[in-house]
């Protein structure tokens, strides 16, 4: 293979999302270390195999959802640019990735003489779940598919009386058909005039954009108009979600205009609710199970808690900040309109309205949301008789996220941060990684690092201190800016 071809293959693999598949063994090793090093294994009624399987399944599904999005983007780009032979390449790549995923996950089990047929079944099911979630991305079904697939897999792996492995076998047969059906629908849309919309939606989903278009309901695809109407009516009834634009009852006060321009305080409230309260229906399902308390104990230290709070939350908050940066930084965007729109008062009034809508209201809202989630988890942890440290550790991710959000928002408002500022991305890493470590260390699952939580506390205080210092510095700069709408 010539160097040029090698570069092309490398580029193709990168664009197809090979990196995500390559991360899986690393995560598996981390999980193995985690479960292998459990301090008090007697507390758990499940075998390390089952726990490892249950730990890996959501990750495989999540990775494959991302990979599926990469593939969709490649396919759609290729169709747009009329590049020939891409479909064949994609099929080959997908098959290769699937084979590699199964191999890398099965290898340690086969070596350890574990139940590899069961693993094969569950990993395949997780891959299908991820692909389905990717194909339904941008609709109301992506997160529910992911959660349902993960929950079914975990239940089956843990030997639940409700979900037996036979259900998973049935699902494994049904899922490829569902994937084929969804693909057919998408390809039809691609060939018709709707392909532009599909393309944009796919790209938006990959980039995780939080534009107001994603909440108006206009750009979100649904399975049928009937389902869409039901969902829209439900969302309006439950959340009062309404821009007022269609009804002609727009609030034209300064705060109302900023609210319309910034978009809602949520991207998908339904997803948030599902992410935060997913354990509740699972517990109800497990009501008949003899080891409910044990299951809760297991679930309370499960990495999903950290990932649901940290990843979903931080990504969403960052998108929200980027939206604000877009609004204030793009000279051809809304900023010119808002600065020159009559009836919005002077600069002080606008400044107050902007600070309220961009900073105070979101902080209050997210504080309430995160407080609700922490509260529900606290209840679960109390049920499982967890230590008070565990509960305290649970409050760390939300407080970090709120601090990060405040810091980045003030940075943007003061003009120190732009949409693509590296600060925004680096700050996210600062928060997400300690959160993961905290979740593990705080729950006392690692016996090889007795002082880890102490060191992490110091690191955490340092990170929080740095964020506070930035917040104060940028806050002073913000207070000196006379007109926030003028660059």
């Amino acid at each position: 293979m010539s160097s040029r071809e090698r570069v092309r293959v490398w580029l193709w693999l990168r664009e197809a999302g090979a990196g995500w598949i390559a991360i899986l063994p690393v995560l598996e090793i981390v999980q193995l270390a985690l479960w292998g090093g459990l301090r008090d294994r007697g507390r758990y009624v499940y075998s390390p195999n089952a726990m490892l399987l249950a730990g890996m399944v959501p990750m495989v599904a999540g990775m494959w959802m991302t990979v599926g999005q990469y593939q969709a983007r490649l396919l759609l780009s290729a169709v747009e640019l009329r590049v020939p032979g891409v479909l064949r390449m994609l099929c080959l790549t997908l098959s290769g990735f699937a084979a590699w995923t199964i191999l890398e996950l099965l290898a340690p089990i086969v070596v350890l003489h574990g139940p590899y047929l069961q693993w094969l079944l569950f990993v395949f099911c997780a891959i299908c779940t991820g692909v389905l979630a990717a194909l339904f991305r941008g609709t109301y079904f992506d997160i529910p598919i992911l959660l349902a697939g993960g929950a079914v897999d975990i239940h089956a792996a843990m030997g639940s009386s409700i979900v037996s492995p036979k259900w998973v076998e049935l699902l494994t047969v049904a899922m490829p058909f569902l994937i084929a059906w969804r693909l057919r629908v998408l390809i039809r849309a691609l060939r018709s005039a709707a392909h532009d919309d599909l393309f944009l939606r796919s790209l938006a989903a990959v980039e995780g954009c939080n534009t107001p278009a994603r909440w108006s309901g206009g750009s979100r695809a649904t399975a049928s108009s009937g389902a869409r109407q039901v969902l829209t009516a439900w969302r309006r009834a439950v959340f009062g979600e309404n821009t007022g634009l269609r009804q002609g009852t727009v609030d034209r006060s300064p705060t109302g205009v900023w609210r319309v321009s910034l978009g809602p305080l949520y991207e998908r409230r339904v997803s948030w609710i599902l992410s935060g309260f997913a354990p509740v229906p699972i517990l109800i399902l497990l009501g008949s199970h003899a080891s409910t308390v044990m299951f809760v104990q297991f679930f309370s230290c499960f990495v999903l808690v950290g990932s649901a709070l940290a990843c979903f939350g931080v990504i969403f908050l960052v998108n929200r900040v980027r939206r604000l940066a877009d609004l204030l930084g793009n000279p051809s965007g809304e900023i010119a309109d808002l600065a020159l729109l009559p009836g919005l008062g002077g600069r002080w009034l606008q400044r107050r309205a902007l600070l309220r809508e961009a900073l105070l209201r979101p902080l209050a809202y997210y504080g309430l949301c995160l407080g609700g989630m922490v509260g529900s988890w606290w209840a679960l942890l109390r049920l499982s008789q967890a230590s008070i440290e565990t509960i305290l550790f649970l409050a760390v991710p939300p407080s970090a996220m709120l601090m990060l959000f405040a810091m980045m928002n003030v940075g943007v408002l003061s003009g120190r941060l732009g949409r693509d500022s590296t600060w925004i991305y680096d700050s996210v890493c600062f928060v997400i990684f300690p959160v993961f470590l905290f979740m593990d260390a705080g729950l006392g699952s690692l016996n090889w690092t007795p002082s880890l939580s102490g060191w992490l506390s110091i690191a955490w205080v340092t990170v929080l201190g740095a964020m506070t210092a930035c917040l104060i510095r940028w806050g002073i700069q913000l207070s000196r800016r006379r007109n926030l709408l003028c660059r």
Partner: protein
Amino acid sequence: MVIDQRTSREQDPLSCLELRHGFGDRKILEGITLRIPRGAVFGLIGSNGAGKSTLIRILLGLIRPDGGESRVFGCDSLELDDSVKQRLAYVPQQPEAFQWMKVGEMLDFIGGFYPAWDAGYVDKMLARLAISRGAKLSQLSPGERQNVALIRALATQPALLVLDEPAAALDPAARRELLREIAGRVGESGTTVFFSTHIVTDLERVASHVALLHGGRLMINAPMDDLKETYARLTLASEADIPAHLAGELSRRRHPDGSVSLVIERRPGEQWPVIGASAGSTLESLSLEDLFVEVIQ
């Protein structure tokens, strides 16, 4: 005299005095002084990156200048009040605002802020351009988006219309329609129009005043009718015949054959430089396009 100047500036729809601005070490505008009289169609021309958009944004108070001041209807650009904003409409070069809205939603939303909003005009223009009210702004072509932005600006019935390269994304027919609309507005309601462009023929068609921005300075600033009497090209066989800097010289270009051409500005009531009458030299008036090319090069 100072009071007269100030009074005059306060009556002008748009004016600035000694504007200076830069990005980092790069100077974009250096001492720009400009007055746009009421009812004028003022065309601003300049090469890419000359600072036309920056100047427009500073004039409207969207960017705080490093120095100098600008006024809109006599009001400080950085402190515009509602009465001024109601009389002002601005169309950026690539309108990207509210792309998540539908055309009708955006127009209704914006229209609610303007007492003089002409809903009939909006409907008429949307029908003429075959743009659906239900179409999403993000799904329109750049030209359609620009058309919607222009409709929105004109529907406010502004006293001052500021357009940043309005014809950049328009096809020739739409461009001609826009120019006709501008001319009509000026004739009917005395709207003052300030627009930047690359397209010299557009300027020649509608502009009553023209300014050329180059190297951070306004090299040319004159009524269109006076252009030929004010600026001329002097061509000399050799550079040795002329001083290092001639009075009124705007630019100097050396040709491969050794000859030199200069663009000369003549103040009202003054004569062309005497050197222009010497042997071997030619003095010719310039079209706007030639003038642009000579000064830029």
